Structures are given as C-alpha cells and as structure tokens.
C-alpha cells in the first residue's frame, strides 16, 4: 500500500474517534507490528537527528517537529534487530505516549508503514511468555488479521522505558 493511501486511511481512522480498536501497522524485519491509531500524531520522512550525548545507539537523537524538540528511536535497534540502511520507505511514526503523568511525543523509526486494521479486543491474544529470552514487556497482545500475525505494542510502556 502506498504511503499516501495509508495516510488517508490513518486520517480517516483518527477522525472516526469511535474506532478505538483501529491499529496502524508497520514492518520491522518482516514482522508486522501494530499501535493504537489514536496515539499516532503523524507519519513523516526520516531526517537527520541531532545526537544526544551518552545515549544508547537506538536513540538516534532529537528532531525539530514544528518547534518541539522530540526524541527519535530506531525500533529495529531497540528490539535488537539487525541494523539496515535507511531507504525511501523508512519513516518516522510520531506517537503520543502517556508516561509519568505527562504526555510525551516521540518518533519511532520503522522499515515501512503497512496498513490500518480494525482489530476487536476479543481477537487479541495475550503475548506468550518467552521468559528472559525475549523481552515482551511492551507487547500488549498478538492478533491475527487475514492469517497474518500482528504484534500489538503498548506505546506507554515502550516510551517509559526510553525515558
């Protein structure tokens, strides 16, 4: 699906506040991840971020989002996946997260955005426990859409661990 088509779908999804169960999905090393569409502020192209001293490699730095300074995190690196060259499909999903009684805006770098799905809560399965092998603390659940597996992320938890 083209980026334009997704942004239109995204807009529609955000506007129909009734949704609640709509998820924006994106790809990371062939896996499909979903986040609550109401948390998505915008999708933008990747730009040069200003590096922050003494931060882990997945924190790419801070960027200027219309006068606001927001951090950008590479989710591939965050999840311990292999680093790849950024290309024209690479995007930053700007999300709002609630942590420490404040709303924070943060950019997530992903391989590409994929689609917008309606996922009912009964279709969400709890994430299996991999013990210490795989960190699943910020996985909200697993859902299947058209025989595909979508990993739903808990944005608040994810961002809280960055800050």
């Amino acid at each position, binding site marked *: 699906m083209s980026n334009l088509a997704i942004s239109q779908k995204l807009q529609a999804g955000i506007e129909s506040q009734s949704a609640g169960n709509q998820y924006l999905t994106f790809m990371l090393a062939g896996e499909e991840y979903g986040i609550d569409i109401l948390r998505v502020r915008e999708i933008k192209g990747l730009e040069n971020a200003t590096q922050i*001293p003494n931060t882990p490699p997945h924190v790419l730095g801070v960027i200027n989002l219309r006068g606001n300074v927001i951090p950008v995190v590479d989710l591939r690196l965050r999840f311990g996946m292999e680093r790849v060259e950024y290309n024209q499909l690479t995007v930053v999903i700007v999300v709002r997260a609630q942590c420490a009684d404040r709303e*924070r805006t943060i950019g997530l770098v992903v391989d590409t955005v994929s689609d917008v799905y309606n996922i009912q809560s009964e279709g969400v399965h709890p994430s299996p426990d991999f013990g210490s092998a795989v960190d699943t603390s910020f996985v909200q659940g697993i859902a299947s859409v058209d025989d595909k597996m979508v990993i739903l992320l808990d944005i608040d938890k994810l961002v809280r661990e960055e800050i």
Partner: protein
Amino acid sequence: MSDDLSEFHDVFFEEAEDLVETMEAELLELLNDASDPERINTIFRAAHSIKGGSATFGFAHIAGFTHVMETLMDEIREGSKTPTPDLVDLLLKSTDGVRAMIAAAKAKDSYDEAIIATLKSELEKRLGSGTDVPHTQDSPIPGAAKAASGTHWKIQFRPAADSFRTANDPLAILQELSKLGTLSSRALLDELPDLTQYRFDEQYLGWHLDLHTDCDEAAIHEIFDWLDETSVVAIERVTDASMAAGQSTAVATPVPVAQPAPALIAATIVAEAAAEPQTAPSAPSPIVSPVQDSAPARKNTDPDAKAKSSQNTSIRVGTEKIDKLINLVGELVITQSMLTEEGEKLPAELAESLKEGLAQLQRYTRELQESVMQIRMVPISTVFNRMPRMIHDLSAKLGKKVDLKMVGEQTELDKTVMESIGDPLNHLVRNAVDHGIEMPDVRREKGKSETGEILLSACHESGNIVIQITDNGGGINRDKVLAKGRAAGLVGADEILADAAIYDLLFQPGFSTADQVSDVSGRGVGMDVVRRNIQALGGSVEVSSIYGEGSIFTIRLPLTLAIVDGQIVKLGQHVFVIPLISIVESIQLDRKQVSSLAARGELYRLRDEYIPIVRLSQLFSLSDPSNQEQLMVVVESDQGKVGLLVDDLLAQQQVVIKSMESNFRKVDGIAGATILGNGRVALIMDINGVAALARTSRNGFGQAA
C-alpha cells in the same frame, strides 16, 4: 447556573488566594502596629470579599467560615475588641484554614474538617463578649437600629448601569431580600431608553421595594453590600400608617411592557408597572447614599477600589497564553535567522533592498522578543512576602526574636525562575532563623540587641538577579564545620582548605552542624538540595560568614530561563551551543602546552594556570569523533576553569531554550535544546554538568584515545 459559574471558578480561586495573602500580610503588620485602622479595614474587606465570592460560587463552607472571621474583624474595627497577639495568631491560623479550603475546592479535594471546625469554634468563642455565640447576624454597623418584630421597610434601589458587566445581578439581590420576609416590588422604568438605543449589557431598571421583615437594618444593608458605590440604595423604616398607604398602591400585576431582561423579574417577586410615584408623606426622609456609606470606616480603604484604579493598567492573563506567545516569538526568531542566513548568500548588488528589509526584520524581531519576555517578568515580592509569616511562626516556635527587613522587593525576574526559587529561599531563611539567630539571652550576653535581624535583599547585576540573605546571628563556626567535614570523610585529615571551600562543605549532602536535630532544620538534608535546585536554574549559591557576627548567603540566578546568549561550536558533524556567560576566552590550541597528568588527564598550561582539558567528542560518546580539535574554549564551571576542545567557532546568537525533559529526559551535561536557523536542533551545554561529568567519567579529562 452553577455550570455557567464553574468557568469563573479559577478567577475566584486566584482572587481568593490573593486576598488570603493580603489578609496574612496585614495581620502580620498588625502585630507590629495595631494603631492603623486602615489595616483592620483591609483585612475586614478581604474576609468580606472572600465570603461573598465563595457564597456566589457555591462554597458555603468557606463563606460560613469567613463570615465568622469577618464578624470578628468587624468587632476589632469597632473597637470592642483589641487585636491582641493571641487573637491575631488565631486569625493567622484561620487564614491558613481558608487557604486550605480554597486549595481543596480548587483541587476538588476534601479538607480537614476537624481543624476548620476547631478554628471556627475558637473564632466564635471570641465573638461578642467572649461567650460562645455560634452565629451572629448582629451587625455592629454604627447607627444600625435593632428592628422590632415585623417592621416595614421601604427601599429605593437603583443598581449601577454597569451592574451586569460587574456581575452584580440585581435579581440575586431581590431574591436575597425576599428571603428576609415578604417583599413586594415595583419596577421603575423611567430610565429605560428607546429600543434603538437599548444596550443589552446595560442596567436601566430601578425598584421601589416594600419589605416586611423581622430582620434589622443591618441585615438589609448586608445584602446591598455587594454593590459598588454607583448603585443607589435608600433604606427607610416605615410607620404603620405610611405602610398602609403604600400597600394600597402596590397592586400586584405582571409587568406588561417589554421586559429588557426577563430573568430580572423572578416569579416570587411581584413587579408592578404602575408609573405613578409612590407617596408616603409620613415616612422619614430617605437616607439616600451610596452603599459604601453604610459602613463609613470602609471609605477609601477598599482594596477593590484600588484594584479598580489599577485595572486600567493591568490585566490578568493565563500563563499558558503568554507561554504560547513566547513560543511563537521563538519560532519567529528562528525563521528570521533562517531568512537572514539565506539573504547573506545573495550578492549584495542584487538584493540590496531585501537585505535592508531583513536587517529591519531582525531588529523588530529582537524588540518583539524582548517585549514578550518582559511580560513574564514579575517582582520578587511574591516570594519575599511569604517570609514575614514564616519568620513570625518560626521565631515564636523557637522563642527567638527576629526582625525581618526586605530591600528590592520590586526587582523583577522571570515567573518560572521565581516559582522555582521559592523553596530554596524559604529553606535558607528558615536556616537563618534556626541556626543563625541566637536565643535572646545568648544575644544579650554577647552584647547584641535581643532582637536578631535578617535582611532579605534583591538586585539586578549584569543579566542576573542577586538575592542575599544576611543575618546578624552567630555566624558559621569555621573550625566546627571543618571538624565535621573531616569526621564525615569529606575532607582529608591533613588537607588544608580555604575559608570559601570550608563554607562550601555546608552544601555537601548529609552535612549538618546543628547541635540538635530539630523539626525545623538541621537534619542535614536541605542545603545540598538547595544548591542543586539553584544550579538546576542555572544559578549559584555561596556563603560568607564572620564567626560571631553573622552570615551572608548569596544566590545568583539568570533573569530568565527562556533564552540564553550562546556561542555555537562545531565538533565534527555535530553542533553545540555554549552559554556565552560561562565562556572566559577561546584560544588556538598550542599542542606544546598540553601535558598529561598521571596518564589519566590532560592539562593545558595557559599563562600561569593549568586548566584541565575536556575532549567533548569522547565525553559525549559522539559518533564520528572529531579529530581536528584546533580550538579550546575556556569556560568557568563551579569546579573552576575547564578547557573544552572544539573544531571551530560558529555564530554567536541568542537562542530560545527548549526543554529536553518535556519529551525525553534530563541528559547529563546538557541544559536544553534549541532550534537553529536551518531548522536543525542543537543541544545547549550545561557547563557545570559537563565539568561534573568529566570528573566522574573515564573519558573525562582524558587522553585522546
């Protein structure tokens, strides 16, 4: 109705908080000088305003409580009570109670009802002759006649034309009156203009009111108390004969004319449109007077009146509005510098007028920015004014005598800085009373006056505000501090320290020299927090002292946290901003002057000084480490001078500071971020943070790898 009012709640809270502060300040003054009647009037008026406001907004508990305070103040005003220190103390505690209730109402929270009930009954005990009078409607307004049961009153009431705009709803007053007894009213329509001239927010009506009530004149007056002085109210007592005549003309018919404001006429009040004037020849001549005259002593002392005159020159604006304005101006500055940068690239002969325009734009943008920053500047008196109360309570508790003097309360600083300086300042003043000032007998033995002095001063000094807390107490025992420092392992056994370094120990975590730990201070937490808080604001705190004669704590703070003059420096592909104020000098690096120290650090010999070198790209673990490092920027940190190695110096410019914490977290060595002319983010260095980081980090004052 209550829903409509809720949007005004914030205004009420804000005003009520101000009024509580006024009350508190005046009460404290009252302790020093009880002779000034103005003072008592101001307190009375403040209590009265809070009562009225809270009743209007449905906070009956606050209204009930302040009513008792008001009544008590009224008795003091009348002279039937003297404001003994004891009584003033109780009133001070009551202001705390009011403050707590307001805070609770604001947070939609509960308050400690037991405390309030105790305070209220304490207050009530003092009322009247000192006996327990639970609730008194008796108003001691001079000349108020106690009404005999079932008196008729004739009231002429013409609210001011701007009543609606000042939120004095005449209907509310009529309703209140009707609660006192049987009320019949006749509307006076003579001032009603032609429909074409009619203004919806203007009040044109007047009323003739007949009230049959058991209450006395004071109770009636109290209802009209809310009006400003342009409203006309005349209240007269009517003999039975004249009342009978009056009643005969009071035909109860609904108003047939177009009603300008239908809500004004309540169903319970019978309005009469008959235009002929009511005649009551046997009635005593009416005392027509502005309402204020019902309480003569209140004249000219009304804080509302003062507020009115200053209303022309100031308005209340939410800080978020100002912050938005400041943000926008910040953006404008960025856009402007971006345009200027682009303009520079054009050949002069082609773009002469464009460049002129850009220069002008730059000038106006600067002016605009300065003016906008000025809006947030507030006098430091807001913080200073909290101190008298604190010192009063504290010195009473400790049995000390302390006199507080304040100088330079009008010195202005940024609101955000002021909000954050309150706690540290409070702590230092507390310490001055607790540790500084000696007990009266000790002072007498030393040949000092029994009353200790604390001087709180503020002034501007080269872009900073300097706040000093001076006490003439015992001073700091240098040797004791040093011994404590040695015992705590902060100072080596044979280490010799300069005085400044010894006093500096006071700011170390876990350090306290108080002989006894009291619940006031002396637990050893605090001074380090004070310093940390002040440093977080980009300021510093230091102490000097003469043992036996007193101490001076000096706080230096930037006037604003929103902008900083910065030097932009280049480090490989990275760009950082160094606050200009910390820069001592920048020099071309002469490799011959670099010497290593114990293979762990590097020192640079600059004239007769050795300055530790910080390699920023290592310290900050930057990717693409720079290897040019041709320049050294010498900066002054709280740990002394430090040399920062950079590739190049770029522009010097004023930058708008954006918090890193709002979307990320605090980063060591970084004070904030800013957006440069090209739209990119640059980080602003926190020089003290960089120095601290260098001391603790392996890559700190390090050798090049």
